[in-house]
C-alpha cells in the first residue's frame, strides 16, 4: 500500500474527468472479451436496426449485431493497435534517438536528418503510402503507423539523451572508467525511457484517431473485427434512419482522443490542479503562453 501512495498522489494531480475516461477505456479494452455481453459478430437480420432494449442495451446495427458489445470489443481493438503502434514507434525512436544523443557528431547529424524528413511528411501520407504498397491489413496498419510515428519519439529521445549525457553524473562515470555499454544501458537508456514514456500518453490520442481514420477508409482494421472508425463507416449509409449507430462509436472515439490529449497536456504542463475546469486550464494556458512572451521580450 505504501508503495502505491506516490502513484495515487501523482494521479490525484491529474484532471479527473480525463483520468476516468482513460481509465475506463483501458479497463474496457483490457477485459473486453469478458465484459462484452454478446458475440459482437453474430448477425441477426430479424433484429437489425433496433433501438435500446433489455436484450440489446444500445440497440443493434443494420446487420442486427449488438452495438454495446461491438463498442467494447472495439475499445480492445483500439487499445491493442494503439499500444502496438506506440510500442514499435517508441522502440525505434528511443533506440535511434539515444544512439544519436550518445554519439553526437555525424551519427547524430545523419539520424536527425532522417527524422527531419520523417517529420516533414504528414504521418497519414506515410501510412497511406506503406499500405498502398503492402496492401491493407491489421499488422500492415500497425507497421505503417509506427513508421510514421517514430520520428517524433526519436526527436524527443535524442533531446532527452543529449541532456542526460551532459550531466555531471555521466561524466563521473566516464572518469570512473565505465565502459560505453554500462553508460548506455545502465544510465542513458533507463533515464530516456522514463522521460519519453510520458510523451506517449499525449500521442496515444492522435494514434487512436489515426487508427480509426485508416479503418474508416477501409485501409486499417478489416471487417468483421469491430473498430470505431469502421463502425462509423458501416453505419454511414443509415445516418438518417438510425443516427445512433454513427453517434455512439463517434462519441467513444472522441472521448478517448480528448481524454488522452487532456491527460497528455496535463502531464506536459505538469500538474493542473484538480478537478479540471475550463477556467483553470485557460489560466494555465495563458501562463504557459506568457513564458514565451517573456523570452521574446528579453
Amino acid at each position, binding site marked *: 500500500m505504501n508503495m502505491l501512495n506516490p502513484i495515487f498522489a501523482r494521479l490525484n494531480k491529474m484532471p479527473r474527468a480525463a483520468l476516468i475516461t482513460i481509465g475506463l477505456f483501458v479497463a474496457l479494452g483490457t477485459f473486453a472479451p469478458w465484459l462484452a455481453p454478446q458475440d459482437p459478430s453474430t448477425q441477426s437480420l430479424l433484429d437489425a436496426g433496433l433501438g435500446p432494449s433489455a436484450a440489446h442495451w444500445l440497440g443493434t446495427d443494420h446487420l442486427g449485431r449488438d452495438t454495446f458489445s461491438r463498442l467494447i470489443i472495439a475499445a480492445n481493438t483500439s487499445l491493442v493497435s494503439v499500444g502496438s503502434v506506440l510500442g514499435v514507434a517508441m522502440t525505434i525512436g528511443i533506440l535511434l534517438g539515444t544512439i544519436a544523443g550518445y554519439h553526437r557528431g555525424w551519427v547524430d547529424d545523419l539520424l536527425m536528418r532522417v527524422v527531419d524528413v520523417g517529420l516533414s511528411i504528414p504521418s497519414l501520407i506515410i501510412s497511406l503510402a506503406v499500405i498502398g504498397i503492402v496492401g491493407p491489413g491489421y499488422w500492415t496498419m500497425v507497421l505503417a503507423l509506427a513508421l510514421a510515428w517514430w520520428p517524433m519519439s526519436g526527436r524527443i529521445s535524442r533531446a532527452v539523451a543529449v541532456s542526460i549525457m551532459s*550531466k*555531471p*553524473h555521466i*561524466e*563521473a*562515470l*566516464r*572518469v*570512473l*572508467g*565505465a*565502459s560505453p555499454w*554500462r553508460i548506455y544501458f*545502465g*544510465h542513458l537508456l*533507463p*533515464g530516456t525511457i522514463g522521460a519519453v514514456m510520458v510523451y506517449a500518453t499525449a500521442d496515444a490520442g492522435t494514434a487512436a484517431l489515426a487508427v480509426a481514420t485508416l479503418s474508416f477508409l477501409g485501409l486499417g482494421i478489416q471487417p468483421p473485427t469491430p473498430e470505431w472508425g469502421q463502425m462509423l463507416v458501416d453505419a454511414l449509409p443509415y445516418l438518417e434512419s438510425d443516427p445512433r449507430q454513427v453517434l455512439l462509436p463517434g462519441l467513444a472515439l472522441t472521448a478517448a482522443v480528448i481524454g488522452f490529449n487532456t491527460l497528455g497536456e496535463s502531464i506536459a504542463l505538469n500538474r493542473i490542479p484538480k478537478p479540471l475546469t475550463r477556467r483553470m486550464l485557460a489560466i494555465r494556458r495563458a501562463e504557459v503562453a506568457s513564458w514565451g512572451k517573456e523570452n521574446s521580450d528579453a
Partner: protein
Amino acid sequence: MTQAPVLKVEDLQTRFKSVQRGKFVHAVDDVSIELYPGEIVGLVGESGCGKSTLGRTIVGLEKASSGRVLLDGVDLSALSGAALRDSRRALQYVFQDPYSSLNDRQTVGEAIDEALVIAGTRSPEERDRRTKELLDQVGLASAVRDRHTRELSGGQRQRVAIARSLAVNPRVLICDEPVSALDLSIRAQVMNLFLRLQKDLGVACLFIAHDLALVRQAASRVYVMYLGRIVEHGSSKELYDRPSHPYSQMLLASAPEVDPRIEKHRRGPLMIGEVPSPTNPPSGCRFRTRCPLAVDDCAKALPPSRVLSPGHTAACTFAADLHRGNRTALVQQEMSAP
C-alpha cells in the same frame, strides 16, 4: 622532492572551436604541472581562466589539442579504449556540484557499488564490505546506504561523491572546487574530512579553487593560472608571502581580510578590468592589458618563466624585482576609499 611525480602534465593545450568562424578559444595553453605522491597542490585563478578545463582535460573529459599527460610515467595519450579507461581510473575527479554528479535514480549503495564493479571487484561480499568501509571513511552512517541520493543534503552528497571516487583506489584526485557549492557551515566539515582522507590514503591531489584562504590552508604548493597559462608557481608559503607576478599580487590583495583594521588599510587596487577573451588573447604577456607595470616590451613576446628561488617561478619580466620587493604591482594605486 626526489621522488618521481605521480602526475606529470606536459605542454597541455585545450582549444575549443569558437563561435567566431575559424577561431579557437584557447582555454588551456601550454600548461605543464607536476604532482608528487601524497601532496596537495592548489590551482587558483579567476573564473574563466581555464582551471576547470585544465582539470577536465587531465582526466579526459575534454580532448587535449596537444601535450601529454603522464601518470606514473605512462603516457595516457598513447593509450585508447579499455586500456585507457583502466589506466585513467587512477585519476579521479570530484565535481563542484554534488547535486548533479550523482544519479538521482540510484541509492547511495548502488552508486558506490557501481564504482566498485567498474573497478573490477567481482565478489559481491567484497563489494559489500568495501561499500561499508568507504561510507565509514567519509563519515556517513551505514543507514544512508539504502537512501536515494536525491534524499541527501549537499554535504552528504559530496561525501558520497568522494567515497565513490575513492572506491577505485585513485592515485591522484582532482578536486574542482569541491566545497564551494556547499553551505558555509558544512564546508569546513567536508574540507576537514577531505584533508584527513587525503593524508590517510596518501592520494596526491590537485585542488582547484578560487578561495585563496582555503588553498593556503590545504596546499603545499600553488599554481596561479591566468587566461589559460600558469603565471606563477611556488610553495604555498613563498607564494602567499612573496607573490612575484603582478597578477598573483593583485589576486592575493583582492581577497578580503578578516581583521577590519587590516582590511581598512589594505592597499592596492581591487582587480581592474575584465579578463580578455581567450579567443583573441593579448599578444606577448597575457596579463599586460590589466597590469599596472606593463611596458611596451610586454606586448612583444611571452615573458619566460623566471626561477626566483628553488621551486618558485613566475612568468614576468619584473619577477626578480617583484620577488625582492623592489617593485610591486600594488603601490601604483592607493585605495581611494577612506
